[in-house]
């Protein structure tokens, strides 16, 4: 599922990659960056926690516009500011779409990668960030019609409380939770790999939750594979063989085939009435009907029904 979202076969407007201390999300974001630069006309990278060079390897650099939130977010070095580069200010509420509109080249559709929402969430309440993301997702409806095809954001699960995570999860169409599994991502020639849980919500309303293993090659391409959860042994383990009650007895409780057939033909006392009616059609009046068949000894006297008059 992660691979399909990355390649674009599964449409997802907002992808959030939640990582933790043991399992870093930066390689996955890097893969998204390089893949989106191949697919879309223009990628806007908002990097707030790392310098841009960490994300540009292996990607089509001409299509990536980076918005720098890393060098000087709080405007401490106002004089040395290079006014040509586009910088993100944490002193004012986040406005991703405004930054996108300020870039000179107007290519559409646009993809957005946000390195991390954490610095913004630490300064502003959750709803401000949600609103900024919503504005990105609804950018198509605004007057100049920039279309944002996909937004990928990183989120550090350890640094925020459950309610912020819940609010973001409510908005996200795909939530990738990188898990601290036994296989932590190892660096080296083999690239990165690790466990993750993907919760994907399709437009039709169907929700898919899968445990997956992903692998990132040194050329920054990601492959993922669904990992089957181990079956709970208590429910589906082999059942104990049922003890056969007819074994080890001094008398015979088993039936031969002819005896079984004869048994099925025995007329039980209350079955008798069924023969008289057509059994397949449901009765017009549900409930019972009473059929009375007098015995030989029944003496049904109209004048004395209880048979207790004694003259």
């Amino acid at each position, binding site marked *: 599922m992660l691979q399909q979202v990355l390649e674009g076969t599964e449409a997802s407007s907002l992808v959030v990659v939640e990582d933790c201390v043991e399992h870093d999300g930066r390689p996955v974001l890097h893969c998204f960056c390089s893949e989106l630069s191949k697919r879309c006309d223009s990628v806007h990278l908002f990097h707030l926690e790392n310098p841009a060079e960490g994300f540009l390897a292996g990607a089509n650099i001409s299509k990536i516009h980076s918005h720098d939130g890393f060098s000087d977010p709080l405007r401490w070095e106002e004089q040395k500011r290079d006014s040509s580069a586009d910088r993100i200010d944490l002193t004012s509420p986040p406005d991703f779409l405004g930054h996108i509109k300020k870039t000179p080249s107007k290519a559409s559709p646009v993809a957005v990668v946000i390195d991390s929402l954490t610095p913004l969430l630490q300064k502003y309440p959750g*709803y401000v960030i949600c609103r900024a993301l919503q504005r990105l997702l609804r950018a198509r409806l605004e007057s100049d019609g920039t279309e944002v095809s996909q937004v990928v954001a990183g989120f550090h699960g350890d640094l925020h409380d459950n309610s912020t995570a819940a609010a973001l999860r409510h908005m996200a169409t795909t939530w990738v939770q990188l898990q601290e599994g036994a296989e932590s991502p190892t660096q080296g020639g083999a690239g990165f790999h690790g466990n993750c849980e993907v919760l994907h919500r399709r437009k039709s309303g169907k929700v898919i939750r899968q445990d997956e293993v992903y692998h990132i090659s040194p050329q920054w391409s990601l492959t993922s594979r669904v990992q089957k959860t181990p079956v709970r042994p208590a429910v589906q383990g082999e059942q104990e063989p049922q003890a056969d009650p007819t074994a080890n007895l001094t008398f015979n409780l088993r039936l031969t085939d002819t005896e079984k057939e004869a048994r099925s033909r025995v007329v039980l006392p209350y079955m008798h009435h069924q023969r008289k009616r057509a059994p397949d059609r449901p009765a017009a009046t549900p409930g019972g009907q009473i059929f009375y068949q007098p015995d030989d000894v029944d003496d049904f006297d109209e004048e004395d029904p209880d048979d207790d008059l004694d003259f």
Partner: protein
Amino acid sequence: MAASMGRGRGGVTSFQKKARAKTLQIPGTRPSSQGNQLLVSTGVPSLDHIIGGGVVVGTVMLVEEDSFGSYARLLMKYFMAEGIMTHHPLLLSSAELHPKQLLSDLPAPVSDDIGKAALNQEEVSLEKNVQKEATMKIAWRYHNLRTEQPELGAFSQFGHYYDLSKTMSSEMRDTAPTRLFYLQDELPLEKQGVWTSITNPAYIKLLQSIQDVVKEGQFDLTVPQPKDVPRTVLRIGLHSLGSPLWGEQDSGSSHDSSLPHFLHALRAVLRTSLAACLITIPTHLFEDMAFTRRLEKLCDSVIRLESFAGSEKEQNPAYKDYHGLLYIKQLSQANCLLSYMPDCNDFAFKLRRKKFAVEKLHLPPELQDSQQREQDDPVAALKTPSASCFNPSVKSKLDF
């Protein structure tokens, strides 16, 4: 309430009171058995049945959303579609989707009784094909009884049936006057900053808008109306109120009280007007249970939806026929001492291709004794409360 007992369209009885009371005969409503109330249908007849006939006019019905909000959105669509079918004016507000998008996707009504029967028949025959009926030998008296439970609310004529696979045509939609409130249009996103005041401007605008519509459309009951003006009921739908886009900030410990203020003021407006309101709130986003309780107390009827999508309950065999559970938390008590009491409290809903229906939750019968131990059986685990010495999921040293 000034709306006195009247005979709604499709009337149940021909009894007429001799007193010269003002009878309000409004199409699409019917009198309630609980008191001097008028009811409007929610659009789902089985849901109407379990909440006592419908939404009481003048009250607020709160639907607590499921985790992904899809079924709550469906209920809102049914409510709006019912309003169009009964020619009630609509007021729809939303922050995430544009209300026009919600309105463009309403289910089409099933037009006549034959269609309705066909809809039910199709569902029933699907289930019957699964098992062939064996003739019973001993319990043959039960052979003639129906195997499937009757659908809740199937015998009432109130409320329409809808086909989810088709959408309502735009001509039909245009017959009812609608007023839309899209938060992004009223308060543009780029002008919204951090709201530090205690009263959230979004809610103030919404309340203003509702009051304006009530005054303009002459739904206000305190203002005397000329006799010849036909009265009708306004349906208000507030989709996904209290989501982060409305500025609802959950800092873990406290919420500001703008949303309770809004609900209180809304109830005051509704009590004196001919309007019924359906609100959906994603309460699963609120960590503070006390805040959710406050919101529930400020609304009249409350139901909560819990869907199985994406949760571990999806694999539970007891729930395999259903898509989620429905809890009735509170029922409206306006103008009477006691609210409607449903006969059972476990309801589940299922969304089929064409229909959304609410049913009583039945646990499947335990036919085989293949589960040797009760704690392995997920069906039995539902019945035993967790406050026992056996905790099947967590093996603690205290289990015996």
